[in-house]
């Protein structure tokens, strides 16, 4: 399940308990930090093209399940205005063994950052604002991470 929510991520609304076959759960949380590239950040605005973001996100989770030995994976991304320390994204990957769960979780966050149409505007304490460019995406393109799963 990949979902975009316009408001705080309430974990118990979206993340189930584990499964009998699962021996390891790897969770990643992306939080708002107070700095980026030397600038002090006051808050963020996340904007998404929701219909496409959820379709692209679902593809990423499906890929993760086909590339790695995992039972399931869920991802929630928040939009709207976020304060420092707020939860922006949460990924949970459930697997029989931990290695696949770690690898799949890494794959999912890398792909989300590269492909899913979500944008981030930073508001700095000096009053300036800026739409952030994903440097990985800008420099290396959507296909950047293909080597990751081909090697496994």
């Amino acid at each position, binding site marked *: 399940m990949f979902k975009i929510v316009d408001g705080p991520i309430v974990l118990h609304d979206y993340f189930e308990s584990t499964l009998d076959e699962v021996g390891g759960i790897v969770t990643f949380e*992306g939080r708002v930090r107070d700095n980026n590239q030397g600038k002090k950040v006051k808050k963020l605005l996340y904007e998404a093209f929701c219909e*496409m973001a959820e379709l692209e996100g679902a593809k990423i989770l499906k890929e993760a399940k086909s590339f790695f030995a995992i039972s399931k994976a869920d991802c929630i991304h928040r939009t709207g205005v976020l304060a420092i320390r707020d939860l922006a994204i949460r990924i949970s990957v459930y697997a029989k063994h931990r290695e696949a769960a770690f690898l799949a979780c890494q794959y999912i966050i890398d792909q989300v*950052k590269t492909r899913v149409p979500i944008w981030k505007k930073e508001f700095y304490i000096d009053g300036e604002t800026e739409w952030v460019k994903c440097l990985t995406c800008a420099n290396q393109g*959507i296909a950047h991470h293909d080597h990751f799963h081909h090697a496994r």
Partner: protein
Amino acid sequence: MKIQIKYFAGLREKAGKNQEEITLQEVCDLKSIYLKLSGQYHFPLSAHEIKYSVNNEYVECSKIPCENDVVVFIPPVAGG
């Protein structure tokens, strides 16, 4: 031929609107459409900095849209 354009992030701010319907007088690809609109709205990103989607799928900039397609110019993404 009419198509729908949706704008997001910095492009939305420059266009001053979330979406619009435009009429194409001649056959043209997505990159040409972006360049034409960029001339009108002074978008902050060049054609090679953005990606293109039609009906919620990534497509090449050389794609020629069809009647009633929903076109989105995708600025560099920054989720996560």
